[in-house]
C-alpha cells in the first residue's frame, strides 16, 4: 500500500522579498506569494481574488504613496504561509499613516464615481485583518487571511 502524502499541517513557507519602488514588480511579487498558497490548497477564490488584489493594493500604496516611487527607496515583503493562514507584511520607507482614517467607504454614493480611493477599502474587504505594525521603523502593514 503506497504511503499517503504528508499532511500540509506541519508545512510552513516563509518568503522575504525586496523590490525597488517600481510598480512593474507587483505582478511578480503577487505570483511569488500566491504560489505557496496554491500549494497549500487555498481556495480558488482566495487565489484569484483575495490574495492578488489585496497584495497589489498594499504594494501600490507602498511604492506610490509610501516611497513616492523614489528609485532609491525599497519595499520589502515578508510572507508566512501555512495550512491555516497567510500573514504578509509590506514595509516601505515612508511616514507612518493612520490606516482607519485613510480608509473611506468606496460604496458611498458620493464616492462611487471617484477614480481613486478603493485601495484600502478593498484590502479590508478581502483580508481578515489589515493592521499597521507600530513597533518597527518605517511604514509596515500586516495583512492576514485564514485559509477557507
Amino acid at each position, binding site marked *: 500500500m503506497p504511503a499517503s502524502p504528508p499532511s500540509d499541517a506541519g508545512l510552513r513557507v516563509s518568503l522575504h522579498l525586496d523590490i525597488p519602488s517600481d510598480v*512593474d514588480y507587483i505582478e511578480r511579487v503577487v505570483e511569488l506569494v500566491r504560489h505557496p498558497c496554491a500549494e497549500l490548497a487555498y481556495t480558488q*477564490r482566495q487565489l484569484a*481574488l483575495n490574495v492578488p488584489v489585496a497584495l*497589489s493594493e498594499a504594494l*501600490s500604496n507602498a511604492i506610490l504613496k509610501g516611497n513616492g516611487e523614489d528609485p532609491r527607496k525599497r519595499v520589502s515583503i515578508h510572507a508566512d504561509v501555512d495550512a491555516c493562514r497567510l500573514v504578509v507584511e509590506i514595509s516601505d520607507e515612508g511616514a507612518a499613516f493612520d490606516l482607519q482614517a485613510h480608509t473611506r467607504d468606496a460604496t458611498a454614493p458620493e464616492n*462611487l464615481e471617484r*477614480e*481613486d480611493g478603493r485601495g484600502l477599502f478593498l484590502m479590508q474587504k478581502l483580508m481578515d485583518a489589515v493592521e499597521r505594525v507600530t513597533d518597527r521603523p518605517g511604514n509596515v502593514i500586516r495583512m492576514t487571511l485564514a485559509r477557507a
Partner: protein
Amino acid sequence: MSFSIKKQGDIVVVDVEGQLIVGNRQELKQKVLDELERGEKKFLIDFAQTGYIDSSGLGVLVSLSKKIREQGGELRLANLNDDLKTLFELTKLDTLFQIADTRERALSSF
C-alpha cells in the same frame, strides 16, 4: 498583459488579457481615449481573458465611463468571471456599469 482593440460594426471592442492593474491601466485608458477622440461612441471592454483587477484598474474604468458619457457615448462590460463579479459587487460598481454575461449579448445591447 496586453490590450487588443478591434471594431465590430460601429462598436470598439477592447480585450483585456492578463491583469488590469496600476502598471498598465494608463495604456488601456490612452487606447480608449484615442478612439474616443477619433469620434467613436460605443465601447465594449471584454474581460474573458482577464486575471485580476486592482483598484486603479477599477478607477480607470470609472473614469473612462464618465468621459465616454460626456461625449454622448456608451461603455459596456462583458465576461466578468465570478471573482471579478464579486469585486464589482464589493465596490458597488456593478450598479454603475452595464455588464453582460457574454460578448454577444453586450454587442447586441447597444
